[in-house]
């Protein structure tokens, strides 16, 4: 599929675009074969950087993302002409949140399948700094969602998504505060080089809900999953919920956009 406007028949009520508008939003707007070749080459380069050059996974992933950026920019510029700014931003968000969810899937595999310790189950780019990466990204998501709402992306799923993402970002803020406090404590102990990352958050095993002074001796500290699962799993589910809600919100928004012509 080439760039520019989507053919009219695909936008028609009977076309797949009308039925699955999210697929149209994700259309890379580049010829399939060269795109697949580029993707394969990128993955090979990623592997080479990691295993042959010894670059950390987060570094190689960053290089790969940087290399893919022009393709994305080209697509999103074309999207802008077709869909308008709000829907284009929605498309960008879907792609990037999709990658973020992939990050959590990789972490999940590292922890549950490869049996790596939690501190080493850091996904593709989180090893750079798991606290900053997720704190910054989640607040970007909230900011974009607020902007999308102001731009007209408003439906029951988008509001639910905003609440979900806000709560998620709030937990990352709590973890960021604890991370910075921990850094300060470690510096005070003379070991500033020790990683302060990975402390439990609000939810999960040993989190605030499970072990905070306010919740002790109440049912709150015993809520299954919310007080028992690992931080890694907690955030896997945060992001799974987020991508599903985002997909639902985008689907409803795009269908409305099609219907309104």
């Amino acid at each position, binding site marked *: 599929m080439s760039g520019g406007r989507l053919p009219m028949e695909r936008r028609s009520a009977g076309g797949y675009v009308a039925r699955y508008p999210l697929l149209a939003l994700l259309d890379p707007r580049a010829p399939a074969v060269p795109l697949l070749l580029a993707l394969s080459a990128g993955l090979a380069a990623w592997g080479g950087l990691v295993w042959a050059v010894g670059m950390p996974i987060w570094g190689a992933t960053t290089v790969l993302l940087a290399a893919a950026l022009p393709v994305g920019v080209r697509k999103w510029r074309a999207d802008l002409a077709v869909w308008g700014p709000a829907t284009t931003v929605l498309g960008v968000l879907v792609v990037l949140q999709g990658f973020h969810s992939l990050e959590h899937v990789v972490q999940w595999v590292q922890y549950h399948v490869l049996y790596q*310790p939690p501190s080493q189950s850091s996904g593709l780019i989180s090893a750079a700094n798991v606290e900053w990466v997720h704190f910054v990204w989640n607040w970007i998501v909230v900011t974009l969602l607020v902007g999308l709402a102001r731009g007209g992306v408003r439906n029951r799923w988008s509001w639910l998504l905003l609440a979900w993402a806000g709560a998620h970002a709030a937990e990352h803020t709590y973890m960021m505060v604890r991370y910075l406090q921990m850094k300060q*404590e470690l510096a005070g*102990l003379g070991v500033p080089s*020790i990683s302060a990352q990975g*402390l439990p958050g609000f939810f999960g*095993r*040993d989190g605030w809900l499970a*072990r905070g002074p306010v919740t002790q*001796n109440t049912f709150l*500290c015993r809520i299954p999953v919310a007080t028992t699962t690992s931080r890694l799993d907690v955030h896997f589910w945060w992001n799974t919920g987020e991508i599903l809600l985002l997909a639902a919100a985008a689907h409803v928004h795009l269908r409305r956009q099609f219907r309104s012509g």
Partner: protein
Amino acid sequence: MGDLDDDGDLDLAMGGLAGDDSILWNEGGLHFRRQPLVGGGSRAVIVADVDGDGGLDVLFARHTLPPQLHRNLGGGRFGKLSLPGFELKAYSLALGDPDGDGDLDAVGGSYDAGLEKDLGYNFMFTHSGGGVMYYERTDAGEYVGRRLAEGAEALALLLTDLDNDGAPELLTGNDFGLPDYAHTWRDGDWAAYSPFRHTSHSTMSLDSGDVDNDGVLEVYSTDMKPIARDVATLARWRPVMVRTPVDTFRGDKQIMENVLQVRTRGGAYANAAYDRVVDATGWSWSGKFGDLDSDGLLDLYVVNGMIAADLFGHLPGGELVEANQAMKNAGDGDFRRAPEWGLGSLSSGRAMSMADLDNDGDLDVVVNNLEQPAEIFENRLCGGVGLQVELRQPDTRNTRALGSTVRLHTDKGVLTREVRASSGYLSGDAARLHFGLPKGAVVERVEILWPDGKGSSVARPQTGGVLVVRR
């Protein structure tokens, strides 16, 4: 702990890691007279009638050497002996009579990482090697060994009857990532089995007790996990946690937490430590059950702390200082921290035992600390009425009936205790059992299941003293 001079007071035997071992003779009123025993470098200490002559002896595990018996010669004199045939360089020890033949057999567990450090790899190729050995005592007094595990990091051994069949189970608590072992006595021999879905990762201590008075014993193991989740506490642990990440593997049952094994209705065990908030007691060593407030419910006490410059060089003196943790059994399945009991010592505790040292009917606590003086905590909780029970089978060589189960039947439930020589981390247990009684409870009878499986009972014993039951 044990009444070494038969004067009615429980005396103490203390192992010295850096100095001599010693006996602390109980002279009443919580006054003790120290008698050094030449030796040292000891690990586990057990007071028991090892030779079956009626007097309590003291057995010391010595880590790089086979255990040494200080045979009680009477008059405060002890003769040093080895246990013939017991060649394992045991770190932890347990004594019992699993085969019910009337004498005390022994179990030893090695600490292979320590042996390797102190002796080099060669120890693995010696005749004794490492691992877990069961030594059956013969009529001639020889110990005939059988290896139950090839390797071990055994900080704790526990003989306890988990399935109420009258025969013991043997639990081995291994340090590091080596999974704990479990064996059950079946058809006259030990058989390995796997009763638990989860175990502590670096098991430091094992104890069992009937915390809910349902007649089935729960098992408590300790591990290393920060007591509190505030940043200041976590920061003191952080360098160790970051530098030594825990490796896991497919099917790994180990979690780096204290574990409370509770038998479910289906017969399987589930870990209830996290739900009951007894999963984290610091860098824990001995953790034991005892009815400290004499209310008929077993409480928990865990001693903790670590001194190691290579691990805690970022802390003053290379020491992780933590308060020992006392936890009151609330009776609803939960334990509540009880700092008001005054047991929150900041010394680096290792071995710990509970018994009535001043004969006032409640449990006092003795803690052997590392690099600091030992501590005795007199119980001033002014709890309820209690009853203590001692068993004697003078016609056997297991004169203190180790391995027996005693059930105290009251109008408010049944309390269960086992007669054991050791539990926790390298800690002895007095063969004098303590029962606190629920408020207003009337004792109906004491029921005894002896090590050979036979039973007897005593109707309406008088409370408040020591009931000695002779067979």
